[in-house]
């Protein structure tokens, strides 16, 4: 049966609110940096973050004076908060690159509103992460020994150790993330240079914009560079947390030595990264009135990514348990029992609740579109992902093969202060960032407004 169909193409799904043009995008975002007065909320938030940053300085100062003995680490738990927090922060840093690089290659225009501050979040999170292994070495001033530098003693790093791979993976990731972020900023810095009235500010943005004129040649080179950086960054999204997972998985400790670790670590990283994106995006859109740029659609998409990656993490937990019970190795079976019934049972149940059970409410669209609920669930996920790393590090190390070597781990006040301090560092940098640099990518947002549509005669 031949049916004649007359149809009209569907309007392009636009991820930003209606009524915006090229000018309004520029005005709205530059206004936050150049004209908007500093609010009380911002000042209080920054002061709180600075307070925590002060605690970090105190904790690091005392650590350098006394050594890592001030922390709760001891044999058998030689990896305590330092490694838990390192993995947690590195994981959070993953969403930025995923949004910037992978979603760019997948041609997802909704990323345009959130990529800039997600990239900033990545850089700040990697800075926080990098502190922990550095301090955990005990003599951070000798940290350069981890690099393969020729030396008179003929001492070289152990290249077969994933801990050394980490040095390269994380430093490469940090470098590429910074370059990617800065390259993306250049057109916006030029816009700020051209918009600013104050000559000092104009000069500063002008120097950073590196002579950008917005000519067709500049745009062509910019687009090529951006695409290349996106291509280079994409494998890094996988490689960094894969190498972090190898830190554990190549060892034979039960609970660490399992083949699912690499993809499950990567999924967990994206899970916590998107949770942090939402924790930042939801207050930002309310405080700065940018909910027509970061719309409900963005929250919905981010929540869906969180749900999907959370389910992969759940698959990982299930496979880990299944393999331990199916394989039947004595120590693996004990690990399952120990997590469910051992001294850290509460932490494990908390992990299952926060990482797996509670986030299932994200199946409900109404909840995905409710910023407050979404904010709370994202906080819950961040707690859950922290607990996951705590369980992996502490439960496995505290009870390994020989019962006589069993022990327990209790973090000290200095552990907590260092952890809280990195939160201070992170939020201090975020508070400063939202006021001095465009937190939303103006150039890319302009590609979404109706004026940017190509019209054929």
């Amino acid at each position, binding site marked *: 049966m*031949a049916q004649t169909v007359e149809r009209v193409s569907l309007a392009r799904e636009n991820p930003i609110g209606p009524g915006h043009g090229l000018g309004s995008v520029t005005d709205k975002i530059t206004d936050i940096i150049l004209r908007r007065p500093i609010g009380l909320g911002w000042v209080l938030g920054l002061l709180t973050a600075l307070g925590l940053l002060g605690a970090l300085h105190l904790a690091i100062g005392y650590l350098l004076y006394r050594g890592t003995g001030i922390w709760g680490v001891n044999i058998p738990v030689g990896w305590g908060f330092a490694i838990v927090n390192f993995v947690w922060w590195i994981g959070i840093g993953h969403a930025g690159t995923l949004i910037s690089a992978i979603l760019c290659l997948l041609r997802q225009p909704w990323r345009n509103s959130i990529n800039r501050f997600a990239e900033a979040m990545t850089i700040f999170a990697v800075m926080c992460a990098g502190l922990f292994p550095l301090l955990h070495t005990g003599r951070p001033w000798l940290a350069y020994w981890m690099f393969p530098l020729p030396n008179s003693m003929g001492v070289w790093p152990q290249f077969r150790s994933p801990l050394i791979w980490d040095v390269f993976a994380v430093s490469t990731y940090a470098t590429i993330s910074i370059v990617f972020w800065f390259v993306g900023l250049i057109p916006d810095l030029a816009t700020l240079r051209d918009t600013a009235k104050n000559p000092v500010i104009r000069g500063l943005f002008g120097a950073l914009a590196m002579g950008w004129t917005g000519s067709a040649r500049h745009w062509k080179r910019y687009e090529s560079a951006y695409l290349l950086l996106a291509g280079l960054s994409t494998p890094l999204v996988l490689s960094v947390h894969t190498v972090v997972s*190898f830190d554990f998985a190549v060892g034979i400790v039960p609970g660490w030595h399992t*083949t699912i670790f*690499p993809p499950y670590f990567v999924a967990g990283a994206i899970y916590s990264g998107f949770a942090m994106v939402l924790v930042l995006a939801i207050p930002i859109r309310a405080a700065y009135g940018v909910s027509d740029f970061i719309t409900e659609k963005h929250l919905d998409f981010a929540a869906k990514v969180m749900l999907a990656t959370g389910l992969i993490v759940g698959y990982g937990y299930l496979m880990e348990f299944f*393999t331990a*019970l*199916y394989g039947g190795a004595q120590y693996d079976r004990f690990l399952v029992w120990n997590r469910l019934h051992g001294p850290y049972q509460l932490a494990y149940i908390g992990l299952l609740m926060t990482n797996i059970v509670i986030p299932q409410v994200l199946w409900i669209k109404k909840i995905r579109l409710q910023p407050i609920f979404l904010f709370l669930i994202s906080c819950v996920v961040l707690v859950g992902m922290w607990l996951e790393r705590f369980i992996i590090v502490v439960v496995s190390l505290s009870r390994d093969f020989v019962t006589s070597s069993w022990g327990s781990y209790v973090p000290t006040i200095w552990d907590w202060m260092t952890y809280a301090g990195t939160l201070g560092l992170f939020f201090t940098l975020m508070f400063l960032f939202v006021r001095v640099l465009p937190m939303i990518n103006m150039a890319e947002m302009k590609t979404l407004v109706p004026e940017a549509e190509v019209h054929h005669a």
Partner: protein
Amino acid sequence: MSVTTQWTSSAVATPEVAKKLSTRAFVVGLVAALGSAFGFITGAENFMQAYLVGYLFWLCVTFGCLGWLMIHYIAARGGWGLIGRRIWEAGVANFPLMFVLGLPILFNLPKLYIWARPAAVAADEHLRYVTGAWLSMSGVWGRYIGFFAIWIAMAFLLRRWSAEQDLPENEGKALPFQWVAAPGLVIFALTSTFLVVDFSMSLDPAWASSIYGLIFVASSGLACMALTVIVTATLSNYQPMATLLTRTTLHDYGKWCFAVIMLWAYFSFSQWLIIWAGNLPEEIGFFRIRLQGGWEYASLFLALFGWAVPWGLLLSQDIKKSTRTLVPIACWILFMRLFDVFWYVKPSWQASLHPGQAHLFGITPWDILLPIAIGGFWLGSFFWNLRQRPLLPLYAPFATQVLEGEHAHD
């Protein structure tokens, strides 16, 4: 910009050639099946091992069709997803066929699996444990029936709603695809993993790897995408695929092949590195038997030609955009997926049923004939299913954009 386009449902009908391909595939399958029947008489164990390889490979292709179909409904409703939809639907309609084709394996478990031999179980403590914990006869049968019931039900619902979308009165009507596709992906990941554990990982019941299921899921996705390239390219010699398959869509399929081949390699490499570094007696045996007796060359071949070479070629945009270059690579990818299943099955089967013997790399005629036989039936049924519906769901959302593709007005 709104554009009005005129298209008829007969203009998007599957071409007659699908019928011819279906008949040819059935004939090839039948001839190969008759030829391999001799193998069952001369050596039932070897025959069943080859049957398992062929079956698992075509099951992977079917899994891939279900996976991509569900991904299409939740994340890729336009472009490449919409053009692949009817192909994947024809693939998932083969689940009942795969259920029937799997029964010979279940009726011949002792020929394949050490855990299905009561005498061996009685003599080995670990086998007693693992058969008690998971690999019981009733458990394997129950899971097989239950999993197929789930897959057939999901395929049925998705196909039924898709057929409803072919009716003009349903244009623009919201059909509940996502209600099956979203939870379906979770259910599919778990059920396919556990089926692969029962049918493949349990060949060596003393060995376990938690990434095993994901490796097969990636392999399934890759095999199906390679098949999609081959089928769309073949049909692009006829209308409507000649219009529908644009260079952009082909490029997208090529990109997916590139990405999933990397994913498969990533999972496989992770499995190897972690087990190699751990070097535990209960784990390392899996790789030891694959690194001696000629199997080391097979392993190297798999790494080089299963990943490095096709992946390297697919880096090129030009290669991905032309059927002339992409189709041979897709055929090669499909062959390497079969080789990968062979690499997983045969050494474990040899080592567990004949311990203490030298396990040399070898290919029997049945290793070639049986995948062709099962494939013949699979493809015969596939093209028959494909023929039943138009090649493009004309009233689906985003169909207009597909019809306004690069060559739409040629």
